């Protein structure tokens, strides 16, 4: 196929495609908007419900054990970490949803690459998730043992139960972090490939 033939073969696409009416386009737009809204509500809804549930539990537990200063401190710290983490997760999600598309390709790829590289280089999520997991297990365990924090920690039986629970919880947190990291690394690899192809 010669150059002119390639151009003319390409131009034939226009005559073969069935143009859609304004109504059909509008229906597709409505459908997609609905899907994106549902996806947003689902993703933020689940983490929101879990976070709200934990915060409510922490408030109830703290009020019921107001005299236990160690327990109160743990619950305050946990509540604060959860609120900050939730806010930061929502802002990252909104950033990705609203990432500008009406810019040159190279610029768009650079913005995405910077964002993912920044996330991957940050050690904070590796620290935060196990800390949340550990404090949450500690908080729930101490609450249902119905004794003071210091007593629970010093009871041998309770202490070993806590260690086993923490090990399982940390393994789950580590696995979740590993999966998220793998997905982000795959995105970064794809972006690097695109930059390489641009040279």
């Amino acid at each position, binding site marked *: *196929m010669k150059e002119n033939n390639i*151009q003319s*073969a390409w131009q*034939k*696409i226009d005559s073969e495609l069935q143009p859609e009416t304004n109504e059909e*386009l*509008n229906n597709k*737009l409505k459908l997609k908007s609905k899907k994106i809204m549902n996806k947003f509500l689902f993703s933020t809804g689940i983490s929101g419900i879990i976070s709200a549930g934990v915060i409510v539990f922490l408030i109830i537990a703290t009020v019921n054990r107001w005299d236990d200063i160690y327990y109160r401190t743990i619950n305050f710290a946990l509540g604060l970490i959860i609120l900050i983490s939730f806010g930061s997760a929502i802002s990252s999600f909104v950033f990705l949803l609203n990432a500008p598309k009406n810019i040159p390709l190279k610029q768009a*790829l650079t913005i995405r690459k910077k964002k993912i590289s920044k996330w991957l280089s940050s050690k904070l999520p590796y620290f935060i998730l196990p800390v949340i997991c550990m404090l949450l297990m500690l908080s729930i365990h101490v609450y249902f043992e119905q004794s003071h924090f210091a007593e629970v920690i010093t009871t041998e039986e309770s202490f070993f139960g806590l260690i086993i629970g923490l090990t399982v919880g940390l393994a789950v947190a580590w696995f979740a972090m590993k999966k998220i990291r793998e997905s982000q690394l795959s995105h970064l690899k794809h972006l690097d490939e695109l930059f390489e192809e*641009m040279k």
Partner: protein
Amino acid sequence: MNKLKQEFLDILSSYQGILHKVTLVYYKTKAQREDMFQEILYQLWKSYPKLKKRESIGSWIYKVAINTSLSQINKNKEIEFREELPDLSASGGTEAELIKNEETRLLIEAIHQLNDIDKTVMLLYLDEKSYDEIAEITGLSISNVGVKINRAKKTLYHHLTKIYHERK
């Protein structure tokens, strides 16, 4: 329907060929193309109120369509990897059902074998965009655009020749 949306849909109906061509270049199955068509439509609608230069609508559509498609390709690759080989017939068929012209079909098949950036450059070149416009849409320098077009054309001819020989 409000005035802004009506105006947007009027513009889109005259430029929808770009959306179809972009999805045809990057995606192989009808289901993926349909999903991407809707995604691009949504992204265009989102950025439409901020569009200042109404005279450069074509470039705006190309930019949004290309950026949206390339940002989703990695996700689709992951899906294909998990499902191993995608069943093209089950997911709604390939371009064969959409494009009747044999030469056009072979050309699209050859384009699918290019890398993503070469696909982008060839798409714009075949749509008769100037080097300046291609540079504006891709962010490449004008001299690099020339180099990339020549290189992509050579690779495309190579793939086309290979496909012709396989078909004989």
